[in-house]
């Protein structure tokens, strides 16, 4: 049932802007809708699963691993092992990795935006126009700082392994916002997504 043009003419509202969710669902299907922990460059096999749902329709999106204390320890020691190498990497080289991350975010921005909306329940307009573009911008911005770090911040040293607990409201954006400067400065990191979104 379409609204008559003459009626729309009176108030001039915006039209709806639906975004197809199929590619995001296909991506989830390609991962069997089950996810392990990403530790030391590889996914662990899914275990101790809990559901993550689409808050808009309460349907199951995927199942995610609840980390055990042992897994947390494994992750932290992996990050600790990676630290000497990463912190000794010249700033210009670290910048290359961050630039690459930013480009990948831009390349897959539509998928990331739709996933974020499915998972978080916020409007697509917000994830598409704010969250994901800012994720890319944070990586670009701090890639620039990585390049200039030795000159602009002499006698500064990376701290080591950074632990991050992400809030629920801007999950991917908060992740990028904090890890981009941490990585740029030569730290390694472990982060935990917000458990409140279960």
């Amino acid at each position, binding site marked *: 049932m379409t*609204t*008559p043009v*003459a009626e*729309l003419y009176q*108030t*001039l509202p915006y*039209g709806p802007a639906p975004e197809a969710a199929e590619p995001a669902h296909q991506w989830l299907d390609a991962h069997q809708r089950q996810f392990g922990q990403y530790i030391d460059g590889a996914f662990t096999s899914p275990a101790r699963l809990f559901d993550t749902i689409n808050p808009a329709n309460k349907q199951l999106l995927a199942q995610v691993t609840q980390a055990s204390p042992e897994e947390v320890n494994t992750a932290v020691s992996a990050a600790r092992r990676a630290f000497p190498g990463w912190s000794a990497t010249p700033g210009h080289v670290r910048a290359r990795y961050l630039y690459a991350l930013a480009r990948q975010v831009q390349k897959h921005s539509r998928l990331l935006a739709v996933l974020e909306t499915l998972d978080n329940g916020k409007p697509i307009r917000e994830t598409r126009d704010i969250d994901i573009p800012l994720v890319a911008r944070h990586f670009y911005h701090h890639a620039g700082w990585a390049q200039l770090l030795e000159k602009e911040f002499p006698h500064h040293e990376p701290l080591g392994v950074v632990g991050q607990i992400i809030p629920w409201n801007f999950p991917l954006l908060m992740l990028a916002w904090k890890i981009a400067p941490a990585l740029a400065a030569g730290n390694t990191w472990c982060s935990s997504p917000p458990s409140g979104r279960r």
Partner: protein
Amino acid sequence: MLTEQKNTDLSLGHPPRNPGAELDLSWVEAARVNRSAIERRADTLPRRRTVKKEWQAAWLLRAIRCIDLTTLSGDDTRSNVLRLCAKARQPVRTDLLEALGLPGLRVGAVCVYHLFVTTAVEALHGSGIPVAAVSAGFPAGLNPFDLRLKEIEASVRAGAAEIDIVISRRHVLSGDWTALYEEVSAFRQACGAAHLKTILATGELGTLTNVAKASLVCMMAGADFIKTSTGKESVNATLPVSLVMVRAIRAYLERSGYKVGFKPAGGVRTAKQSLDWLILMKEELGDEWLSPHLFRIGASGLLGDIERQLEHYLTGQYSAAFRHPLG
């Protein structure tokens, strides 16, 4: 017939006319524009909102309602102007308008040189469409000052309800805000009851900060509309410049309580562009600035493209441009 008029004539009444204010130089001097921020906002504005299908048709009809249908060429003739006025009365083919449910639709105004005001007034008699005249030494604004005033007075006597004037760019470029204020105030006096649109010729003002300052001075001097360009500069209406101007309008509204209109002109040729400007107005100033009382698009070639898009909406097919007479 009455209901048809009601359909196409938006219920919003004319807001109270801007009486102008004392020249506040400290305000003018304090005006600043962040160019990068303006460019980014102008770049994303048209991409963030969706106006498709029946929404697009409705928005395009509204764009027509806000067009100042213009002919300002050296080769204008009486018959050109008569044809333009016929188009103003019937901007889109009758069958298309009837199918869209807005049979009485007409444009915002017809804009011509002073010489053709009488012709246009006669041709538009009884239609309710106002005639706008470009007076005061269009397009350079470098004619003797007393002649510029006399041209405005003559246009008003000839029946022009709206006067589009060009400001003296040299006052802006040399920062002589008092001279600009006095010039525009004198034009406003000469206009009397006719509405005054001040053309800033933004393509020649150098910086966006100058655009913001000139906009404020013109509104303080009593402009009813501020307009981007004459259409004769090498750079005419652009979205960044428009954004700066509508933000100046918002600042003036917040401080004085008076609503000033905005008119982009020059270079608006496609239906898509007209939607971009409507989105800009809706986002930055609100729905009231989507009516011809506060928003006009100065264009000569735009209407033809809009008519093609409307036909496409109804039939699913694009017609060749020549199928629609005069844009």
